[in-house]
């Protein structure tokens, strides 16, 4: 049985923690806007390859570099992150409705907060696995953070995003450990809601990155 959560209501009648997470997300918007701006400004200004969408031949060695971005792999990772957002809202819904009686099997599946938190954390980890694979293959193909302007801005932007996903996965695992220890109930809904808002924000940032970095030449 969980202890009643302490409430931190403001003069607006809204919980201060939720106001804080929205203010934090607002500030994060500006952080990622600066990183995306940097990427876009440097786009097409690299003097040496490899390049994101074009092939390049090194004039000194004659080595042939193909377009480095792997759209099929990134599409799969994008789909994984989109699905993780679905799992996250289902986890929140399960926590909010923990005390509602579950009569059917589908009610029990939809009402399992542990299942959906695990699914979200697993999808987030899979996304990070895709990113590790991508970074490793780029380094093997000759693109590092020091190679050219594209490498510097690309690894900084996607690396920052990956760090945010990692923080989100750790947050989800923390919620899971609480769920196993004492169970998450309606009293914890706000805590899960705040984690969910952060997770969805990481998802919407990737929506912008996928289009601006990977799809637009």
């Amino acid at each position, binding site marked *: 049985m969980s202890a009643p959560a302490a409430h931190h209501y403001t003069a607006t009648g*809204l919980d201060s923690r939720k106001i804080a997470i929205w203010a934090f997300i607002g500030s994060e*918007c500006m952080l990622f806007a600066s990183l995306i701006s940097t990427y876009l400004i440097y786009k097409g200004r690299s003097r040496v390859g490899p390049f994101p969408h074009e092939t390049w031949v090194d004039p000194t060695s004659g080595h042939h570099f193909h377009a480095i971005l792997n759209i099929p792999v990134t599409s799969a990772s994008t789909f994984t992150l989109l699905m993780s957002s679905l799992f996250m809202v*289902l986890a929140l819904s399960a926590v909010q409705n923990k005390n509602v009686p579950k009569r059917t099997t589908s009610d029990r599946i939809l009402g399992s907060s542990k299942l959906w938190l695990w699914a979200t954390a697993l999808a987030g980890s899979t996304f990070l696995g895709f990113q590790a694979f991508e970074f490793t293959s780029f380094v093997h193909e000759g693109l590092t953070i020091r190679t050219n302007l594209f490498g510097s801005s690309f690894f900084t932007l996607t690396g920052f995003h990956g760090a945010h996903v990692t923080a989100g996965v750790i947050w989800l695992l923390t919620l899971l450990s609480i769920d196993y220890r004492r169970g998450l109930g309606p*009293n914890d809904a706000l805590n899960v809601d705040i984690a*969910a808002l952060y997770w*969805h924000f990481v998802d919407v940032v990737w929506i912008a990155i996928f*289009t601006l970095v990977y799809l637009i030449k």
Partner: protein
Amino acid sequence: MEQDTTHTDAAVHPAEDHAEHHHPGWSTYWKVALILTLITVGEVWMYYVPSIYNSRVFVPALLSLSALKFGIVVAFYMHLKYDHKLFRALFTGPLFIAGCTIIALMFLFGHLVAKFGR
């Protein structure tokens, strides 16, 4: 779309109940996920069709679809459509500043000058 309402802490703070807790349920969430998937498939399909990829509509179409996906996630998954207007202001205000920053820097460094002229 169908709305199944959840009530959390309603007895503790009724004002917040009206402001924050009218969230959609599974019936809405799976449709949103399907729409997001279809839009993503559409974006990737456009990338692989040379006639679209090389046309002038490719970039505006991709940006529009991306903005649509962004808006759908924020409205339905982040519940901004249902939440208090203060949360909307806290998000859209910085987002507007962020968008203006990107556009201003693109003009400053000459990426948009070629498109729109001096």
